[in-house]
Structure formats: C-alpha cells, structure tokens
C-alpha cells in the first residue's frame, strides 16, 4: 500500500471526525422525523426507532383533518414572526440612524442610554408585573411580540456601526443641500441603504420570534393565542399530567383529545419545517451575521 503523505493523512482523519460530528448533529433530528412517519402501534410496542417495522402517514392525515388548533397555532406563529420582525427592524434602524450622525448633539447620550440596557436589567419579576398588571398584555397577541425582543441594544449597535462605517457623511450633506428633511433623508436614503444589515438582523429576529416560547409561557394562558411552540409545550405537559395520574384536560376547550405520539412528533416536525426549508437559501447571511455579531456589536 502506498504510504499517505502527512497532509493527506491529516485530511482523511479530519474528514472522518467531521462526518461523525455531522451525524451526531443530524441523527437526533432524524429520530423525531422518522417517528412522525411511524405507525402508532409499532411506535408504542417497539419504541422510537430509526428503522420502524411499519411506516404510516396517519399522523399527517390526522393533522390535516383534525388540526384546527394546530393550524391556528401555526398562523399565530407566522403572524407574530412577520409583524414582530417588521416592527423590530423599523424601530431599530430609526433609533440607530440618529446615533450614527456625527453632528447630532445627543448622539453620545443616546448611545449611553442604549448601552446601559445591555449592562443592567431589572429582572423578569418587575418586567412581568409591568406588562401584565399595567399594560394588561396577558392573553393578547401583543404579549408574543412586544416584551423583551422588539428592540435590543445589540441590534441597534449593529445598525449604528454599519451606518457609521459604511455610509459617507457627504451623502447626507448633499441631500440636505437639495432641501431634504431629516425624515425624508431617513426614509428615502438611509433606510434603503441599511438593507444588507437589516437583512441580517431580520433573519435573527425572525428566527427568534419563530422559536420563542418564553413570552407565551409568561403571558399566554388562553390556548387560542398559542403559537406552535407553546402548543407543543402544552401537549407535552398533558402527557406528563396523564402519566402522573391527574387526568385533566388542560387544553381548556375539552374538545381536543390527546394526540398520539406520532402526531406529536409530526407537529414538532412542521414546527421545524419552515426553518429547514429557508435555511439553505439564507445560510450565507446567517454565517455572516454570526461573525459580525461576535466580533463586535
């Protein structure tokens, strides 16, 4: 056998290790995907398996036929993601732009105002009391959009730095000479110019909203306002309840029977689906975003 050069040997070993790691990353996800296509009786008899004896599409048929509550939750997740991301991007760029203006008297003060929110916080208890007792946000769609995520110091600084380093002052000056007002300059020039950064923060914000369940956990008790994540939590809790012997229909309406294991897994799969579908197209931006964010916000 021909002796491999050191370089080749290293590459071979590196490839093997990475392929194993990639499998470790993917196989757990594959398990619930396969479970969602497994026949319910087989699943209960043999447990979760990568090679189930009998496959079935029943879980998905069930979802299509009985799934009013699932589709509703899906709709809410989509609504929250779209509205939340839109509002977040608007508010973030609007506060970041004045901060980036070198001749704005309060730019430094504003930067400190934003920065301090990244250093200290009042904790979840006072935040919860404020939103639930003074703004009465519980069991409204706004509870899923507004608290905690709408504007973050981190995103503001990303956009501010982009403006500061990427857009020349002369652009603003010439627009001013042409008689444009500040609002026009922002709307017609600065907002469109921020598109590359806006794309990056939209991606992370949208992912955050789609995956969020914490606001729902704190502020939503009415299943009509559950997004897909909170519906999944409630269903998992019901199973825990059943196991502990307290058979209560916690879903509230009483009309919903406990979905089978395969149906639960199918719901988790459709919860991941949009991410997996969009991911290949956005991976480049995602990686860019991770790097910008890490190097310095």
């Amino acid at each position, binding site marked *: 056998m021909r002796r491999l050069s*050191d370089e080749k040997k290293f590459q071979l070993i590196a490839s093997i*290790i990475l392929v194993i790691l990639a499998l470790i*990353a993917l196989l757990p996800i594959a398990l619930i995907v396969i479970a969602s296509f497994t026949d319910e009786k087989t699943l209960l008899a043999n447990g979760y398996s990568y090679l189930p004896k009998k496959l079935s599409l029943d879980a998905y048929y069930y979802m299509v036929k009985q799934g009013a509550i699932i589709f509703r939750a899906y709709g809410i997740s989509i609504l929250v993601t779209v509205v939340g991301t839109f509002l977040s991007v608007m508010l973030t760029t609007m506060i970041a732009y004045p901060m980036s203006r070198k001749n704005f008297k309060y730019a430094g003060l504003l930067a400190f105002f934003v920065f301090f929110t990244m*250093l200290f*916080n009042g904790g979840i208890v006072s*935040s919860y*009391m404020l939103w639930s007792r003074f703004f009465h946000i519980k069991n409204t769609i706004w509870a899923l959009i507004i608290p905690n995520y709408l504007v973050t110091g981190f995103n503001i600084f990303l956009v501010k730095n982009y403006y500061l380093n990427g857009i020349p002052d002369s652009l603003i000056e010439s627009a001013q000479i042409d008689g444009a007002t*500040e609002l026009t300059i922002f709307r017609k020039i600065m907002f469109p110019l921020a598109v590359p950064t806006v794309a990056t923060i939209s991606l992370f914000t949208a992912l955050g909203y789609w995956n969020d369940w914490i606001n729902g956990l704190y502020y939503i008790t009415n299943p009509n306002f559950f997004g897909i*994540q909170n519906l999944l939590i409630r269903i998992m809790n019901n199973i825990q309840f059943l196991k502990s012997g307290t058979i209560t229909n916690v879903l509230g309406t009483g009309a919903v029977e406990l979905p089978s294991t395969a149906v639960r897994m199918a719901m988790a799969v459709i919860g991941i689906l949009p991410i997996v579908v969009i991911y290949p197209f956005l991976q480049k931006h995602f990686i860019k975003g991770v790097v910008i964010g890490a190097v*310095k916000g």
Partner: protein
Amino acid sequence: MISAKKKIKKQGYAKSGPLLLIALPGILYLLINNYIPMFGVFLAFKDFNYVKGVFGSDWNGFKNFRFLFKTRDAIIMTRNTILYNVAFIVIGTVVAIIVAILLFELGTHIKVKLIQSALLLPNLLSWVIISFIGFAFLNSDTGFINNTLIKLFHGQPVAWYTQAKYWPLILVFVFLWKTTGYSAIIYMASIAGIDKGIFEAAKLDGANKIKQIIYITVPMLKSTIVILALMSVGRIFYSDFGLFYQVPMNSGVIFNVTQTIDTYVYRGLMQLHDVGMAAAAGLYQSVAGFTLVMVANGLVRKFDKENALF
C-alpha cells in the same frame, strides 16, 4: 475623529428636533421595556400581595433576601448556574476550536459546506423542539436509549428523568450539540484572518500539520479565545432558561442538578407565586451579573483595548 469635530465646529450641530423624533419610538420602547423595570427592583424589598398590588404591598426590608439565603435553594441555584457555565466555557471553547480547525483545514469544498450546515442546524431549533428530541431518546417507556441502545447491550432500563446523576452530563452534551456549530463559525473567521505566509514558512521549516496547529493556529487564536471567554464570564450568573427548564421536562426530583437562578425566578413567580423571593433572586442575579460584566470588561480592556465594550 478630529476632522469630524472640526467639521462640526465649522458647520454647527444638526437640528436635534427631527433626529430625536425619528429615534423617539425606540427610546420609548427602551424606557418602558428596560428602564422602568430597573426601578421595579424595589419589589424585592416588599412583601408582595396580589390584592394590595405593586405599590400597595407592605415593605419588609431585607427579609426576602434573608429568607432566600437561609434556604439551600440559594446555594444550589448559584452553584449550578456557575458550574454549568464554567463547564460550558471550558469544554465549549475547546470543542469549538477543534471543529473550527478541522473545518478550516479541509477548505471550501462543497462537502465541507454541507458538514458545516449540518453542524449549524441544531442551533436553529427552539428549546421546545429540542426537549421533544430529548424525550424521544430519554423517556423510559418508548425512548430510543432504553428500547434500543440498552437492549443492545443487555443493560437495565433507566428512568432518565428521575435520576439526577446523569443530568450534568446530559445538559453539557445538549449544550454542545446545540452551540458547537455556531461557536465554530466565530473561530473559523479568526483562523481565516491568520497570515498564510506564516504557515508556508513553517512548512518549509518542516513543521507538519499538527505542529502548525499547535504552534501557529492555537496561539494566534489566543486573543479571540480570551475575549469570548471573558464575555461569557461576564454572563456567568445567567443561564439559558430553555436548556434548564425545557430539556429536563421540569422534573422536580432532579432540581438539585437542574435548578439555576433563571429557573428559580420563573418557578417562584409563575408556579409558587412567591413574588418577593423571585424578585430577590432576580435582583441578586442582576447585581452580581452587572458587577461581573464590569470586572470582565476591565480585564478585556487590560488585555486588548480594541475589543473592550467600553
């Protein structure tokens, strides 16, 4: 910077009104969402009563704190929060660097891109979905581990969700599973920034790949490693609520190894309705966290001024 200042002197400041108006919605949001709750920390010094409300409840001085630190809970949650974070920082960094180096050495072939995508995918899933995946593996009746792996080796099934001793390992594994691909990207960007000439020179001097990694790549990553680690140290009193609440399925018998300050505050506020204690724990976390961010930033400044937060 100097020229900008000169320019301002010559032309004067822009009118503040319109610019403030544009920033106003964002300012209002931060005032409500971030600043008002900062003043709400006084709840930690009250005997909160749902009928009397936030302002009507009676003051009780440091009683909440005295109660909190008398219980074992305070020690357990602090210990867990800090030890898990230390484990995450140390193990997470080492694994991420190894993965980054391996990925980088293999170049930009399409296969490498696919592997990178696979490693990144877990990071895009919510903790709820991850808890479902965990349940598929760990539940005692139908879980994959009990039904397939343990049967394969003729072992005894384990009731995973009630056995505290396995959880430190499970939680560290789940953390690595979710975050390694993400952290590796950051280190890859740093490795890509290293001057290629150094590697070429080392090669000419007869250094093999392993030697190049040990004597060039890793030392060149030092500043990235130190800065990222210090930033994590600044957040050592905070834990990922999802990892510690969803993944263990809120199982009470293993709280000893899964309770962190964040899960304690949640349970105090939403499940036990002990608002005073939850607020006290929250304030303890905020103050300790703030102090550590300051210390960590001071250290980053000393080490590398460019990368300090302020």
